[in-house]
């Protein structure tokens, strides 16, 4: 499935009758099996864009569509920054949630969920509740829950930004390994330049509010990615280019 965004704009009402533009004419295409990072300074509307793609928010104008041979049961599934796990459900039941809503019988659901629990490295934690898990383990549940519904596109909204730096690094590795195995199309929102360059095939740099596409930067690093690649000139080059694009914008965001 390829994901196509055409001239997507979003304007919020700030509650005082003023229109606040969040996204301005964003057009982009994500190809099947591509891992695309959406990157921008805070307040650039990255999460807004992701929510529009997920159908959780209506754009003011423009449209989002999926192109492929058959309509998928789940066009998208979301991995949330704050995990958004159901505290009253065990790991197993959290991962089963989407399948449950799709009406899958209990036995098949349990089997299917088990597969993704193992894929996400959660084996042995099936009966634990979210509060009994560390942040990294919680987000593994978030990832397993999203993958379990077999979405055409996996949407990740700053999935590791609530984790400490070391855990984040490990989770990036883990996600890349999962991607190598599943070849899911992924749209990955982040404000971390190194993370974006390390993970993505293409980094889409957004401007500050209202978010516009500043540049699309293809990352010329081989797959599978390895930590050693961070020392390669291509890595440094891409990171510098992105930083130079958003530096002024980030500075303005700080002053705001």
């Amino acid at each position, binding site marked *: 499935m390829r994901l196509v965004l055409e001239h997507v704009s979003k304007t919020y009402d700030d509650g005082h009758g003023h229109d606040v533009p969040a996204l301005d004419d964003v057009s982009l295409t994500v190809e099947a099996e591509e891992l695309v990072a959406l990157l921008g300074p805070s307040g650039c509307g990255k999460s807004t864009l992701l929510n529009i793609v997920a159908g*959780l928010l209506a754009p003011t104008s423009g449209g989002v569509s999926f192109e492929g041979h058959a309509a998928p049961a789940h066009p998208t599934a979301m991995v949330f920054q704050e995990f958004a796990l159901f*505290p009253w459900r065990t790991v197993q039941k959290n991962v089963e*949630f989407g399948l449950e*809503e799709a009406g899958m019988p209990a036995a098949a659901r349990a089997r299917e969920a088990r597969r993704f629990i193992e894929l996400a490295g959660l084996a042995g934690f099936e009966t634990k509740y979210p509060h009994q898990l560390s942040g990294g383990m919680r987000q593994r549940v978030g990832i397993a829950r999203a993958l379990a519904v077999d979405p055409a596109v996996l949407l990740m909204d700053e999935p590791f930004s609530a984790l400490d730096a070391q855990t984040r690094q490990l989770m990036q590795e883990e996600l890349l390994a999962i991607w190598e195995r599943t070849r899911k199309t992924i749209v990955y929102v982040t404000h971390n330049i190194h993370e974006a360059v390390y993970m993505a095939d293409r980094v889409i740099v957004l401007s500050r509010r209202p978010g516009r596409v500043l540049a699309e930067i293809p990352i010329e690093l081989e797959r599978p990615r390895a930590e050693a690649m961070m020392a390669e000139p291509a890595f440094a080059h891409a990171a510098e280019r992105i930083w130079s694009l958003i530096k002024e914008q980030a500075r303005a965001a700080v002053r705001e």
Partner: protein
Amino acid sequence: MSEDRHVRIAVEDRTRFLIRREHRVLRVLALVALVAAWEVVARAGWVPVLFLPSPLGVLAEGRDMLVSGELAGHLAASLKRLVLGFAVGGGLGAAVGIAVGFFSIAEAVGAPIIAATFPVPKIALLPLLILWLGLGEPSKVAVIALGVFFPMVINTYTGVRQADALLVRAAVSFGARRASVIRKVILPSALPMIFAGLRLGAGTALLLLVAAEMIAVESGIGFLVLHAGNIMATTKLMVGIVVLSLLGVLSHWGLNRLERLAIPWRT
């Protein structure tokens, strides 16, 4: 000051006075001491038995009433009213609370009505309920149900409103429709508040039970207390009071157990 003296200062835990110890022995001792003092005062004959029966006397009377079946009869009548009223009021309260919390139309209709009616002391409604429903059981059950209904409605409503919007969005993103969102997200979110409502309701229910049983009934703990008072059977009266306090303690304990079973994800 020119002299450079060597100083050594040990750092002490400055929060020591904030530590709260449990004092387990003292807890039991205080209660035992009170009852013992009461026993001594009663036995010494400083106060007539009519005003202050001894704890052991009350215990003996309670045992006699238990053996004769008198206590069981009163207790059964009270429990029946209590359980019925609690079930009706609690069930309706939770249902209305969810509706008012979730549906904007129900909120527009229900919220002002609830706000206007909940400050009314429910005991004041008892004569009205008797007028409507007669002197029999229905008016007793209804006043208890009313007393439980309001704390339940308000707590459930608050619990529903406090449900995490992110979790609702997450559920919707995974395909949940309205019924699923209510059952799988809103309801479990509101459960702790619902239990708080049940606990508030339990206290109110006991109060209203005793009040209702003081009017035109021949059975129940409330009747026992009033009747014993009228005939100056102070020991019996005390038995009634002890049973009522036991009911209060037991319902609190039972609800706590139930809550732990119903909300296993709580730390």
